[in-house]
C-alpha cells in the first residue's frame, strides 16, 4: 500500500484553469481517473460551446424559427435544469440572456430530448450554468475512475466553481479588487460557485443597475445548481430566496472591499 498522498493536476479548459485533485489512501490510479475527468470536460465543452458551430447550442442559435432537433445527453441535462429554473425563478434565470425567454422548449420522444426554437431571434448561452455542469460531470467521471461509486476524496475546481467529495477542503475567497484572498469556508460533499458582477467584471448581469457591484457565492449539493443560483441571488439580492431552500443551497452576498470576512 502506498502512503496517503494528495495529487492535483490542472489544465486550461472551459475558458479558465480547471483543477482536479484526489487524496489517495491506497493504490488507486489517479492518472487514469484524471484522464476520464479531462475527457468529460472536453466532451461537455464541445456540446455546450457557443463558439463551436457543431455544438448543440451553436446549432440552436443558427437554426431558423420552428426548427427542432435532438440534442446530446449533456445539453439535454443542462437545458432541462435551465428550463425549470427559468420557470421557478419567474425569469430571473434566463439562458436566452433577454433574447427571447419562453421562445424555446424541450420535447421528449423515444428516449431522446429535442429542442425547439419558436422565434428566430432567440439565442441560448449556457455560460451561467454550463461550467457548473461540466464540474459535476468531471467530478462524476473522477469518482467512477477511482472505482468509488459511493464517493471519493476528490474535487474539481473550474476557475472557482468547485465540487468536493468525501474530503474537507478549505475554500478561499478571492479578493476581486486586489488579488489573493483568505480562508473562508470549509466544504465537503457539496459544491460552491462564486460570481461577481459589476464594472470591469467578466460576467454581466442583465437587469442590474449600471455601476453596481454584486458579489455572490452559493453552496449547494451540485455545482450546476450553485452556478445557476448565483444569478438568482445576484439579481434578487436575496440570500433567503425560496429557490435556495428548494435546492438545499446556502448563499452569501459579499460586502465590497471585504476580502474574506
Amino acid at each position, binding site marked *: 500500500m502506498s*502512503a496517503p498522498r*494528495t*495529487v*492535483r*493536476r*490542472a*489544465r*486550461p*479548459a472551459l*475558458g*479558465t*484553469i480547471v*483543477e482536479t485533485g484526489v*487524496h489517495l489512501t491506497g493504490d488507486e490510479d489517479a*492518472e487514469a481517473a484524471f484522464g476520464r475527468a479531462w475527457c468529460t470536460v472536453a466532451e461537455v465543452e464541445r456540446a455546450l460551446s457557443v463558439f463551436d458551430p457543431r455544438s448543440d447550442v451553436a446549432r440552436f442559435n443558427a437554426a431558423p424559427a420552428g426548427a427542432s432537433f435532438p440534442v446530446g445527453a449533456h445539453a439535454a441535462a443542462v437545458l432541462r435544469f435551465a428550463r425549470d429554473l427559468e420557470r421557478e425563478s419567474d425569469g430571473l434565470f434566463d439562458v436566452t440572456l433577454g433574447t427571447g425567454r419562453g421562445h424555446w422548449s424541450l420535447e421528449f420522444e423515444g428516449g431522446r430530448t429535442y429542442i425547439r426554437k419558436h422565434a428566430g431571434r432567440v439565442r441560448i448561452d449556457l455560460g451561467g450554468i454550463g461550467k457548473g455542469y461540466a464540474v459535476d460531470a468531471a467530478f462524476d467521471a473522477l469518482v467512477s475512475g477511482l472505482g468509488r461509486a459511493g464517493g471519493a476524496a476528490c*474535487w474539481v*475546481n*473550474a*476557475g*472557482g466553481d*468547485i465540487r*468536493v467529495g468525501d*474530503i*474537507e*477542503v*478549505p*475554500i*478561499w*475567497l*478571492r*479578493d*476581486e479588487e*486586489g*488579488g*489573493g484572498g*483568505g*480562508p*473562508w*469556508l*470549509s*466544504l*465537503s*460533499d*457539496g*459544491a*460552491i*460557485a*462564486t*460570481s*461577481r458582477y459589476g464594472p470591469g*467584471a*467578466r*460576467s454581466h448581469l442583465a437587469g442590474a443597475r449600471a455601476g453596481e457591484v454584486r*458579489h455572490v*457565492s452559493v*453552496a*449547494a449539493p451540485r455545482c450546476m445548481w450553485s452556478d445557476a443560483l448565483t444569478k438568482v441571488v445576484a439579481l434578487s439580492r436575496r440570500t433567503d430566496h425560496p429557490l435556495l431552500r428548494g435546492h*438545499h443551497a446556502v448563499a452569501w452576498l459579499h460586502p465590497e472591499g471585504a476580502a*474574506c*470576512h
Partner: protein
Amino acid sequence: MRWRRIPASVPWSIVAPAALLPAPAPAFAVEYLTFDEAQAALFPEAQSFDMVEFTLDEAARQKLQAGLGLPVRARWVIRVARRGGQVVGAAVVDDVIGKFDRITFAAGVGADGALRQVEILAYRESHGGEVRLQRWRSQFAGKTAASPLRVGDDIANISGATLSCQHVTDGVRRILAVLDTFRQAGKLP
C-alpha cells in the same frame, strides 16, 4: 453537503509592524507538477528527453513579437522527447502573468508541430507586485506534486469570479511560434 465558516484570523493590520503597510491579502499558490513530471505526462511514450537551449537572434525575436503581439524572450530551453532515436515532440515551459496571478505551464508539441496538451505546473496568486510575489514564492521551493502533502490547508482551493485563461492561451501561441521558428532555422529536429 457539509460546510462551516473558517473563523476570521487575526486582522492583518494588527500583525503588520506598526501597521505601516496596507494590509495585503494572503497569497494563494499551488504547485502541480515539476518540469520532469510534466514532460513525462505530455509524452508518456518517450524513452528519453534531451535538453537543448536556443537563442533567438534580435531580428527573429522582433519579427515574432510583431506577429504575435506579445513579448518574446530570446533564450528558450526545450526538452526534445525521443523514442527509439525518433523525435516524438518537444516540451517547453513558460510563465504568464495575469492581473493577480502567475501561471507556469508546459506545452507539449508533437514532431508535426501540432499542440498535444498543456499542463499547468504552478498557479500562484497574490495581492500586488512582483517583489512580494518573489518573497512568498520561495516558501514553495523544493516542493513537488509528488511530495506527501498534509490533508488540510495544503489542499485549499480558491473560489471567485472566473479567471480567464486567455494569457495561457497566448503563452501557448507564443511557444508554437517559437518552436516553428527554430524548426524552420533547422535547429530543431
